[in-house]
């Protein structure tokens, strides 16, 4: 999945094709209780994602990954900066139902928590039909047919379509979440730590599914994760976020094989593997923070 480029490739690989998503100078700070400094979740973040491309967004907890992800789907506003998907300004007020729905069709999201992100009252089939009906994409019969196709797409059976979330495993639920996102035919799919709660073999299945979907449907993917191995597996390019700043950007293979920024190096060397020593990781982390 990762491109066969070697470590000698430049750190920056331009997005293939015209940009679908254009983010420029995104800023967001969260006010804290009195006496504490505001937390900067995004500090001048810019990036582009091309159609059919998977952009990985990595960084540790609190680096601002989720804030960026939530901005893309309209759950979070920016203090400054601009965000365009297919040329449309995401921050311009959406007046009226049609505008709101059109905007929702641009970007859909799969959430981290496979247990809480599905409506526990609706069966899988009902959830998919409801999404399509909300957008007026099909009549009841058509929506049902398309729901069947979507289930097939995410490799769930018709029988599983009749089940409710609590009857499904974590991996199955994330498949449902992906199907629900695809139900409105988005141009961008945001996965916010979408495989983090799953065990490794299930992760691999979901990653394969996401890769297949972006290839077949040509939709762009923003893949947010703290797990470098997972991002390396699926992303074409990566953006490394440290306390709201993009510290490194480039082809996934280049960034992970030959990290240039000290923070990226720290992240890469912190991944558990042979000879991994947690004490050393913590010590190096302290050293790094002290130097900044």
């Amino acid at each position, binding site marked *: 999945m990762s491109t066969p480029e070697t470590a000698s490739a430049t750190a920056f690989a331009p997005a293939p094709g015209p940009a679908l998503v254009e983010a420029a100078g995104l800023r967001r700070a969260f006010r804290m209780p009195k006496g504490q400094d505001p937390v900067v979740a995004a500090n001048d973040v810019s990036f582009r994602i091309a159609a059919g491309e998977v952009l990985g967004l990595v960084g540790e907890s609190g680096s601002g990954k989720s804030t960026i992800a939530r901005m893309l*789907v*309209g*759950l979070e506003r920016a203090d400054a900066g601009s965000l365009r998907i297919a040329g449309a300004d995401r921050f311009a007020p959406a007046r009226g*139902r049609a505008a*709101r*729905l059109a*905007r*929702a*069709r641009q*970007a*859909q*999201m799969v*959430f*981290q*928590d496979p247990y*809480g*992100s*599905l*409506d*526990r*009252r609706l069966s899988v089939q009902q959830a998919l039909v409801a*999404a399509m009906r*909300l*957008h007026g994409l099909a009549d009841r019969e058509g929506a049902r047919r398309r729901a069947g196709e979507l289930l097939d797409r995410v490799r769930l059976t018709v029988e599983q379509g009749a089940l409710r979330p609590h009857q499904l495993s974590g991996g199955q639920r994330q498949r449902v*979440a992906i199907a*629900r996102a695809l139900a*409105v035919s988005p141009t961008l799919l945001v996965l916010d730590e979408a495989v983090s709660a799953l065990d490794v073999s299930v992760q691999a299945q979901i990653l394969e599914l996401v890769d297949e979907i972006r290839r077949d449907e040509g939709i762009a993917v923003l893949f947010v994760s703290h797990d470098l191995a997972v991002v390396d597996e699926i992303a074409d390019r990566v953006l490394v976020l440290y306390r709201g700043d993009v510290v490194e950007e480039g082809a996934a293979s280049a960034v992970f094989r030959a990290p240039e920024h000290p923070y990226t190096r720290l992240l890469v060397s912190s991944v558990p593997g042979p000879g991994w020593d947690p004490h050393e990781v913590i010590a190096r982390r302290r050293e790094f923070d002290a130097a900044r």
Partner: protein
Amino acid sequence: MTTTATGALLRRDGLARRRDPLYAVSLAFLGLVVLVAAFAPLLAPYPPDAIDFTAIWGSPSPAHLLGTDQLGRDLFSRLLLGTRESLIGPLALLAGATVIGVAIGLVAAWNGGWVDVLLARITDVMFAFPGLLFVVLVIAVFGKGPWTAVVALALAYAPVIAKFTRSIALSELARPYVDAYRVQGASAVHIAVRRVLPNMTPALLGYLVVLFGEGLMSLATLSYLGFGAQPPSSEWGLMVQEGQDGIVLGHFAPTLVPGLAIAAVVVAVNIVGVRLSERLGARA
């Protein structure tokens, strides 16, 4: 929604499997009471207001199963017919209070801000102010009668329901599926009413059932005090009041029978309400 939710609950849990005889008996008893209310005119041997001066303070006999009251009216018939008013009153008061309270509670939880602050103040005042006193005040202004009592109690209950709704709505709104609906482009009203509210129904239901019992008590109390149902109604609270003259004469039934009816229904309702909360809460 209430009946289907309850039906589904019974099917899914299977009363026999859970072996909860108290719940089963309470539910059966309430079912019986509702049936009696529905078919009271057919079941009652006499019209409830048929006065018979030859049978005043009559003891239980084959002709009058529970005896007669101070006007010689058949107590059994009055009890059966009284089921209707005694149940419809709290039902109506709860329906009104629920519509107002749930709406306010949802809006407060969703919006926060001044709506939330205003709700908190109103509920504080209502909690500090004895409910019955408030109701008597409303009745003093608008005049006594069964419907004034119902409306006044509905106004007193609405903030309580709003506060409860707000607390469960806050935890419900924190769930990621609400964000998922936002991302999907659903409007705030659609999410709150069509999606979040049905998910809150299980928690609300048990609470409302318990409140129904409380409402029945309050309305009976008001009728007893003369502020609610008016003669010749056979509302149970009013029956207790009208029958109490008989106590000094040694005729306990006219007071005791409607009093026991109130107590039995309230106890059954409370058991069902608490068990419902436990069962539905455990699943959510």
